[in-house]
């Protein structure tokens, strides 16, 4: 048995079972039991489509694309949950009045919802399993292991349901809570690989950091370019706070908690209607029922908030983990050419870590860096970008991080020019040496230099 394959099968199985349980309990409490059939249909369609995706030409969807699709489907769920909250507060957002109760439209909603929910994960898992099968060179065993994992999840779940039928879970879920549950299931169980990608929290966090960077940084760059150097330095220091990893992760936590917090506010603090009844006792009973109902509905949301905070703490640490900053090794130009050894006792460029080199030129230190991308090509850049003061980059997991502004840059995209990317150098990567023309270095360094003087920053 191949452990990774089994793990993926198990994870997907548990996810299906949990979603089924909550959805079925919800439908029972709403007396719409028949709507579970479209869910099965959506599930089957997702599985079928996932396997069909194997027929697509290889390389059409890259790993990054798959990750993006998953992130987007998560975002779609967040947006849908927001809409559901709005809907539940009395505005009929979905269809016309009363339309949701008609079987056909509700069925379509459920089918498309479960497709949206399961398809990206299934497709990702299938793709990954296929890759694993090629890697392990054992197609049958890989798929058998995945099926075994799925089966184990199913057996665990069915034996649990045999003894304990928690259908009363339904009374804890309204439509907003259901959507929130689904997005949580997506957030925590949405990765493609095994444990390493179990959670999307780090990517949400990185994505957020990228977002504030692109939005605020670029805006300020645009606004501040013709400004006075000293004012600009102050402004940069101020803006710098917002690009720090701590700030980004705090805000991403707030972002993740904002929707649940709105739910709590909605379900606990909205005034209840005055109960109608013949006797004091019946009025009290209705009042108590309303109170307990809305408290019940708040409970899963609170549980999710605890989950989010716990996950944020465990993954947040990873995403803001220590940045690796190598010491630059000195280089010298020889006849207008700089040569960097690919592998020597001091280091191996192909080891996947960031390597830095320093070059003295007319009293200045020019830093160059080299890093291997996942396709085994090497990208060579200046250790500076065109925007920030040239504090250089550090490495965190498979990202480079700007020391000054904290912007993450995927290693695989290092070498693309412009913006916050390190300024690429055209270099000749040979078997033993990387050769760069000195004139190329000086030409690119002049960008940094001009930025530096115009910034008024040492």
């Amino acid at each position: 048995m191949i452990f990774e394959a089994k793990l993926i099968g198990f994870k997907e199985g548990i996810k299906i079972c949990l979603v089924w349980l909550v959805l079925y309990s919800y439908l029972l409490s709403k007396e719409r039991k028949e709507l579970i059939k479209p869910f099965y249909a959506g599930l089957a369609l997702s599985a079928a489509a996932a396997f069909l995706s194997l027929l697509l030409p290889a390389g059409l969807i890259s790993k990054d694309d798959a990750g993006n699709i998953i992130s987007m489907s998560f975002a779609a769920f967040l947006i849908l949950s927001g809409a559901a909250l709005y809907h539940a507060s009395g505005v009929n957002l979905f269809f016309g009045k009363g339309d949701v109760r008609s079987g056909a439209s509700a069925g379509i909603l459920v089918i498309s919802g479960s497709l949206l929910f399961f398809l990206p994960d299934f497709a990702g898992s299938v793709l990954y399993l296929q890759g694993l099968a090629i890697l392990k060179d054992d197609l049958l065993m890989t798929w058998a292991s995945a099926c075994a994992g799925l089966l184990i999840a199913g057996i665990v779940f069915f034996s649990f349901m045999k003894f304990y039928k928690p259908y009363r879970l339904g009374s804890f879920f309204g439509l907003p809570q259901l959507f929130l549950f689904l997005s949580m299931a997506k957030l925590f169980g949405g990765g493609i690989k095994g444990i390493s990608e179990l959670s999307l929290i780090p990517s949400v966090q990185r994505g957020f950091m990228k977002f504030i960077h692109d939005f605020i940084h670029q805006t300020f760059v645009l606004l501040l370019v013709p400004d006075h150097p000293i004012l600009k330095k102050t402004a940069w220091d101020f803006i710098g706070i917002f690009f720090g990893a701590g700030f980004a992760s705090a805000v991403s936590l707030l972002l993740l908690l904002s929707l649940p917090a709105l739910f709590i506010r909605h379900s606990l603090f909205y005034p209840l209607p005055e109960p109608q009844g013949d006797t004091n006792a019946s009025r009290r009973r209705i009042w108590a029922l309303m109170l307990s109902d809305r408290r019940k509905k708040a409970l899963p949301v609170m549980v999710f908030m605890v989950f989010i905070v716990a996950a944020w703490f465990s993954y947040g640490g990873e995403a803001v983990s220590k940045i690796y900053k190598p010491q630059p090794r000195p280089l010298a130009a020889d006849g207008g050419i700089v040569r960097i050894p690919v592998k020597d006792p001091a280091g191996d460029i192909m080891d996947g870590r960031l390597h830095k080199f320093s070059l003295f030129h007319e009293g200045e230190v020019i830093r160059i860096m080299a890093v291997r991308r996942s396709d085994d090509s090497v990208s060579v850049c200046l250790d500076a970008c065109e925007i920030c003061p040239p504090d250089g980059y550090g490495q965190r997991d498979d990202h480079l991080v700007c020391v000054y502004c904290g912007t993450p840059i995927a290693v695989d995209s290092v070498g693309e020019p412009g913006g916050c990317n390190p300024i690429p150098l055209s270099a000749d990567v040979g078997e033993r040496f990387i050769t760069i023309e000195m004139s190329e270095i000086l030409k690119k360094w002049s960008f940094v230099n001009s930025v530096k003087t115009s910034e008024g920053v040492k």
Partner: protein
Amino acid sequence: MPLITVNSIIKEYETAHALRGVSMEVKKGEWVNIMGASGSGKSTLLNIIGGLDSATSGDVIIDSVNIEKLSEDELAVFRREKIGIIFQQAHLIPYLTAVENVMIAQYFHSMADESEAKEALQRVGLGQRLSHRPSQLSGGEQQRICIARALINSPELLLADEPTGNLDRENTKMILELLKKLHSEDHFTIVLVTHDHFVSTHGDRILTMEDGHIIRDEPVNDLRS
């Protein structure tokens, strides 16, 4: 459709038969007294009707629900919604004041409401003794708290097990006046167990029990004449 239908109830204890096949009906708004010597099974019958005890066999249908088939929790809900019980000993909680003893019944029913509980005590004439503990009150006063507590959740059915058993004649009269008022003005259905002939002259109908059977079922008026 009668409010209570009791169908051939048998209650066996390990050593004895308490009820040997009792059947009876009570209409809505009726006041029925159950009489008999001690050990005749009258209290057991009342407890079974109130869902405080379960029968060995037979059905008790109240408001078209067979309470012998209810689960433990459903039975609790049935008791809090449908039944008000007055005990011989008032069974008040010693550390709670008069008004709190009524409020705790509200709490278990749905939620406590202090002003409503005070009002209920005023109606049984205890408006001046709201924050007294049971130990500071007389037997008659305790029994009136018990009645206020039984009525607070607007039950369908009022069950009374020797409500005047521990009281003197004065207090007995007062409690019976209270019950009469509830019966005539608020149309409560009352089932009352007693061995006191004076008590049994109030109400509509008298069932007489002996050795686990109902041996007589007669209207109150007939007995007087």
